[in-house]
């Protein structure tokens, strides 16, 4: 009997140990975000404009805010869009804020700024986003890219020794007011942007990143604004073409 009890205890402890080994962050300091990454987004990416081409690749005329659920206040602001005014005010980057930057045609460079901070640079508008996984610094003043908190979303456990696959979730706020579309459809400082980053390998071998973006703005939107943006991984930085923000 004693042997049986001991054997059972050891077996259970062994199970516990094995499961603990699969759990990042249990019983030990959590691994850094970079080490625990559910997917590798680092590298060079180019946006592929398949959807909403006429609103993204070129700038639509004033008043074209079709598909954006603007409320009356939002429409009122959108109807007063004046790119010259934005230029005069130094506000050319209004459509390059976190709520829209992934919709802007261009290239991305994604790298680890440190073990717990992922950095996204854009050549269009030369913007820089920081995704903080832990010990996020104080939010500070509102900015175009705001303050982003990130976490991995893991998929089911895989075989022993295999990294768990998953996705990235990022929540951004503390934003400077900007545009959801280049022609002045507004979002306010109270906006929250929730993004989900997926990585898929297409049948032709392309690495494809899809960013699902949910914008919530109680000031200018009737309901959330939900879009997806697609990027293809590039082998190198060729085509990287930094260009300043443009309001037109």
């Amino acid at each position: 009997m004693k042997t049986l009890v001991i054997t059972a205890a050891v077996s259970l402890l062994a199970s516990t140990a094995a499961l603990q080994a699969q759990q990042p962050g249990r019983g030990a300091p959590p691994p850094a975000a970079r080490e625990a990454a559910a997917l590798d987004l680092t590298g060079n990416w180019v946006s592929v404009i398949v959807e909403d081409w006429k609103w993204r690749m070129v700038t639509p005329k004033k008043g074209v805010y079709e598909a954006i659920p603007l409320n009356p206040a939002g429409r009122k602001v959108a109807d007063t869009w004046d790119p010259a005014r934005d230029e005069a005010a130094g506000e050319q980057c209004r459509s390059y804020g976190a709520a829209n930057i992934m919709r802007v045609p261009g290239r991305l460079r994604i790298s680890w700024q440190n073990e717990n901070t992922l950095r996204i640079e854009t050549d269009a508008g030369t913007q820089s986003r920081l995704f903080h996984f832990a010990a996020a610094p104080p939010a500070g003043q509102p900015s175009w890219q705001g303050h982003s908190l990130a976490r991995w979303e893991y998929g089911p456990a895989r075989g022993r020794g295999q990294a768990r696959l998953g996705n990235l979730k990022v929540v951004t706020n503390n934003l400077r007011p900007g545009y959801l579309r280049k022609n002045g459809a507004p979002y306010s400082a109270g906006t929250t942007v929730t993004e989900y980053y997926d990585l898929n390998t297409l049948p032709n071998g392309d690495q494809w990143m899809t960013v699902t973006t949910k914008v919530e703005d109680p000031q200018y939107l009737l309901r959330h604004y939900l879009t997806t943006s697609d990027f293809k991984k590039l082998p190198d930085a060729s085509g990287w073409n930094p260009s300043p923000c443009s309001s037109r």
Partner: protein
Amino acid sequence: MEPQSLLVTLMQSINRHEIPIAVVAAALLVAAVNVLVLAQDARTEPTNIAGEWRLDNNERDTSSQAPLGDYTGIPFNDAGRLRSDTTPESIWGTLEYQCRPHSAPHQWRGLGGASILVEQDPLTRAPSVYHFQFMRSLDRPVFMDGRPHPPAYAPHSWTGFSTGEWIGNTLKITTTHLKDGFLRRGGPQTTDMYAMTEYLTRHDDILTIVTVIDDPLYQDQPYVHSTTYTADLNNRVNMETCNGSFAENGGTDRHYVPHFLPGENAEALTEWITKGGLITGGARNPANAEDWVPLIAARGGMKTLYPEYRSTLNGSVTVEALAVPASRSAASAEKMIAAQSPRDGQVHVLPVQGNVYMLVADGTNITASLGPDGVTLVNTGAAQMSDKVLAAVTQLAKAVVAPTATNACYGAHCPGRWGWSSPYINTVITSPAPAPPIRYVINTSAAPQYSSGNEKIATSGSNTRSGGFGAAVETVEGAAVLAHENVLSRLSTPAGNAGAPPAAALPTVTYFEDFYKLPAFFNGEAVIVYHAPEATTDGDSYVYFRRSDVISAGDLFSTVSYPTIDVAKGGSVQGVIRGLNAILDLAVAEYRSQGGTWIVPGHGRLSDTADVASYRNMLVIIRDRVQNLIEKGLTLEQVKAARPSIDFDGRYGSATGPWTTQMFIEAVYRSLQEKK
């Protein structure tokens, strides 16, 4: 300390009685709780995507229908553009398309939400099949059990054949066997030679769907788009019944194929940019004109998809001159087409419906009716395949008439069994019955690929003949060979120096009227042979197995090539179109414009009404284009140079071999010149 080292130390301590058993028991309890908690966290099952979902996306393709001629964001090549430019939305009015659901590439963007149901393994609860259902759609199963995709000569459907696998949080779905359709409502078309791959990822209550459409015949690179749904317990997928009618198709001509000649509607394609959107009464509202969109970008194309395109906006560089990081296609249309008609020296068997099977014999289809009355073959294939065809038919006939099965009858009262003392023993001590004989061979044309196997195959069979009054029915060697009388004429007096085939290879029964019925039911059903005048030649037939509801179309229909029209032997493009229309009049779709009556083509995959309609439409479109060029006074060479079939050549044409695109265009031209 590593977990393994900890365990070793623990065991040693217990054995030396350094740790009391009470402590061990306490540890047991704690460990058990730990295991339960941690096991819950370390889930091994995939994300749950089953449930009701509402389309929730703020992009143009989902919020409204793109205007006619808007190909922005589509990596079209010239063939894709032409096909889309010339395809009006009224194509939905054709009888065979009236009830089709959204094409697979557009389905996730159609309104009405989605239901995702799941079948689970009863023991492991692992998903074995997901079922996707949309408004206007058919149930779309996604098999998760690792089964392979069907052979390429199996039918295509609107939703295709899908298998799935979980990769992390993402369900990857691979779909093949799709019919032709559209990328978006409003015009952008696909061929039926595309592969579709989808990636479904659930994030909180959002489902992100990435769809890859790889259509190498119409696209310069795969078309990848994405959309989103939101979980919604209150969503209900509405069912929409379909009530098709002739009236939708011009009202008077059920065979009418709406289409534009190239260039005919060029102005209409750009009105959304130049004149504004349609408003009530067919007028256009200039205020809605999307005049900021460059006309060249509206035509789509791979080079307009990348940020490099923006450098063309100031006119300093042209779109053609751009260098972009293009993607390649992972699909080979040539291979996909060839796989529908494998020329591998083998015989492949595809069960069809009722008594009927399709045999793919080195790329040529043979239709077989198998049952207690024996075997009827529609065509015999090439002579060099006869031994393999006979072997396959014999094996199939045995399996159908006397299938191998274990004894299921015990005791003295086994119904249907013969014997006295121990009837069931005769079901074990037995040997299989011989295969029933080949009774009929029906030739749909004189082409050697269909009839040169007659001699060996027909002579292997047998038929019966009445002995007259008072005499017994006589069994005669050799199957009856049935064909239109012009087939007999062609075979018995071959052109050129070719010698006539032996008598055993010639038709023994011919007909010369519109149709011929086998004198009695065969395998429990009527078999009717119809004549298609002036089609590929003057002797074409197609065969209808009435209860099985299968039509063997012979040379009238192929899913792998243009029809081989021999004008010198009485063929014409008009006759082929009439023959296809006659088949469509006879056939009925099961539901939502697919399935129902199956049509076995001379070459290629098993098909249904929509497939035949697609082929008929292609021929009508090319015929009308050639006719238009003839009316403009173009010579044959000029017509060929104009490439009136450019949007179909990748699908059905060939630059080499016995039947090239140039030969086909010449046949169309000549048959129109002769006003047939």
